[in-house]
């Protein structure tokens, strides 16, 4: 049994769904963020798998850009989490639903 494109695509679909599950189920803002990173990773795997089976390199460049966006998103998101924890003393996304102090 050879490993084809659909194996990689199904794997990344499963990883993406696990990430979405975590975003919807977990209430800790940091864990929600980690699950978003997991979803981005799954998308990267899709890009790279398509790129390999098509034989071009565009997917690699796209994965590079996704990583840049993920880094920017992690920096800003963690800063928001720090500010949130400073004003609310909690990271529970259910308790941090007001946009004011």
């Amino acid at each position: 049994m050879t490993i084809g494109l659909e194996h990689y695509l199904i794997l990344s679909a499963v990883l993406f769904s696990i990430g979405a599950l975590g975003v919807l189920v977990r209430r800790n803002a940091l864990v929600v963020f980690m699950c978003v990173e997991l979803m981005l990773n799954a998308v990267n795997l899709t890009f790279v798998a398509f790129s390999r089976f098509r034989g071009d390199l565009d997917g690699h460049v796209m994965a590079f850009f996704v990583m840049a966006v993920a880094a920017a998103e992690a920096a800003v998101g963690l800063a928001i989490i720090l500010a949130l924890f400073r004003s609310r003393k909690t990271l529970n996304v259910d308790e941090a639903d007001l946009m004011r102090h």
Partner: protein
Amino acid sequence: MAETILFWIFAVGSVLTALAVVFPPIPKARAPIHSAISLVACMFCIAALYAMLAAHLVAVLQVLVYAGAIMVLFIFVIMLLNLQADAETRARVSVAKVIGGVLAAGMGIALVAYIAKPEFTKPIGAAATAAQVDETYGTLKPIGRMLFEKYLLPFELASVLLLVAIVGAVIIAKRDPRTTFATEEERQRLYRERHGKKPMPGSRRRTPATANDGGHGHGHEEGA
């Protein structure tokens, strides 16, 4: 044959570690640090899959940028906030969680069912076998050429995006001296400077220094 075995090892490993991110295997301690460590393991598994897909540069970047930089940033924040398992002590089952779980599971099943159909990968062409590539495929040189020729404008925009993210992160995470104070003494000093009188003891905000004490404080929890 070896490729098949390695694929299944890393595929199962990445799925298991991804599940460990969402549902940490130690039920008592749902601290974020367990999720972070599991996510690092998951990223290493995905990096191995990139290497199997001959994406050498992306595999290295995955280890350096994701497992190295981004996850270290996460762990820094976890240590900075000194989080215990307080934010999510009890894994309560609520209606929202059930709905979210059903939606995510349904999305996963739908995606897998759609991808597994042979019509999905057929138009891509030769999907069952990987395309023939030379030994420079996925290395730094051809990807660098693409970045600076075909994708020059997106590359420059990405650098602007990173710059904006740095500035934004600094501004957001900076302590606002008007609303939060390191100590109660600093709050009183700033209040005197601004209003020229002592702050009323009853109307003050709870500052981080006193709020962390939680009742058994250090004495400057003066009577309100």
